[in-house]
């Protein structure tokens, strides 16, 4: 296919397959680290709200550590540090784990805020009918908290999509990595990165739209979440 010229800029369709492969890697890393973050983040949040003793302290320490140190340091520790303990991970797996552990700490804080915003009477009512604490959390508190958490959680998802480009530092060829290789070979830095920016932008739009639909779908009828509705 011919190159496309646009206002003095030259785009080459031959870049697309490589960018496509990079895009798949970006989506895989984002998806996996978000999934890891949700599971770990929920556990951490529940421990920070309901835990006592060591469980509480350890979960708090975890959150403080991962929010208090740079993501890049965490990634390099997983990739270059763990082998000295005999744990050797592929660049891809290192990226997923470092990003997942990191986002878990942030997600835990969003979950915790949502859990704590559920009125105390909900737990009281659940316990008063004989539910165990775990049942009350599972059937009463979390279903309400998870609905509330969608908007702030959406920000975290979008941030992770963009931050995932940091895996280039451990030689994973994601969308950003693919762009750098193409640019380095063709010297078309400006064009390649315009293209990449547009792809990220499209992804963010798509994700925001999906999450708004999700929010709408799980909305509890009658609760004041309708957009623009007076309170």
């Amino acid at each position: 296919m011919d190159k496309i010229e646009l206002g003095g800029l030259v785009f080459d369709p031959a870049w697309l397959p490589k960018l496509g492969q990079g895009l798949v890697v970006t989506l895989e890393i984002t998806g996996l680290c978000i999934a890891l973050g949700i599971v770990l983040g929920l556990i951490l949040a529940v421990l920070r709200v309901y835990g006592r003793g060591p469980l509480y302290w350890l979960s708090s320490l975890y959150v403080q550590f991962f929010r208090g140190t740079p993501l890049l340091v965490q990634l390099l520790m997983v990739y270059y540090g763990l082998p000295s303990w005999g744990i050797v991970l592929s660049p891809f797996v290192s990226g997923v784990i470092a990003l997942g552990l990191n986002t878990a700490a942030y997600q835990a804080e969003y979950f915790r805020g949502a859990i704590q915003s559920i009125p105390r009477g909900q737990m009281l009512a659940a316990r008063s009918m004989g539910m165990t604490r775990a049942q009350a959390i599972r059937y009463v508190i979390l279903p309400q908290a998870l609905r509330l958490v969608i908007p702030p959680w959406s920000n975290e998802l979008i941030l992770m999509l963009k931050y995932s480009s940091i895996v280039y530092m451990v030689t994973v060829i994601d969308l950003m990595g693919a762009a750098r290789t193409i640019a380095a070979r063709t010297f078309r830095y400006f064009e390649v990165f315009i293209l990449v920016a547009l792809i990220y932008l499209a992804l963010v739009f798509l994700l925001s739209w999906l999450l708004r639909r999700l929010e709408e779908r799980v909305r509890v009828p009658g609760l004041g979440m309708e957009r623009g509705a007076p309170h």
Partner: protein
Amino acid sequence: MERERDTDTSRRGPDEVVLRVEDLHKRYGREEVLKGVSFEVRRGETKVIVGPSGTGKSTLLRCITRLTEPDRGRIWLGDVEVTGRGVDLNRVRASVGFVFQDFNLFTHLTALDNVRIGLLKVKKLPKDEATEIARKQLEHVGLAHKADAYPAELSGGQQQRVAIARALAMEPKLILFDEPTSALDPELTGEVLDVMVALAKEGMTMVVVSHEIGFARAAADELIFMEGGVIVEQGPPDQLFRQPKYPRTAEFLRKITALYGETG
């Protein structure tokens, strides 16, 4: 359900003590909220507790199933000592209904699911059986047509009636009500009190913290006046209104009669 309760009564006798509270104490920090409270409730009785704000009425109700841990004293539900060692508290709680001032319906569940959830998760009934009981109890409080509505789609009075159905569905031995109408607009208290009066007439055993004098007169077997963490005086409502032993009782009852009126 009515029939079941009748046979129960004949088997165990109408004088069966459902709840016994003995010398209950509770302290929050330096403030002693309950300073030795004792009373008994027999099967089918309705006791109404009144008293000034901050007197420990809510604390007392929550201590009964140890939702709040009492410091001292003993509590029996039937022949189970709630304050005893190794008691299965969740089982105890499943047999005692609790109706709250601000309803505390689970906001993410429909009326039907609110009534059903305890049957499914605590009593572990099969779904169709739980659904049948839940529908019957919604009908009992006149809300069969609102089964699919979410709490936010219901009026306060309707929400409180769903909460009562939720308590009833568990077939409780006793229901505790903590100011069930005080969060409601005056025009909505009637529908809730009507349900409660009907329950009392059907033979439900109830302890009700409420300043609705009309309800106390219509349904209470005994009125308990609490102040400063102790029971000052208790007796049939008529007796307390007409010839209270203590001037404090007379004064307080006069005040709430003026505030809430004779017709609840």
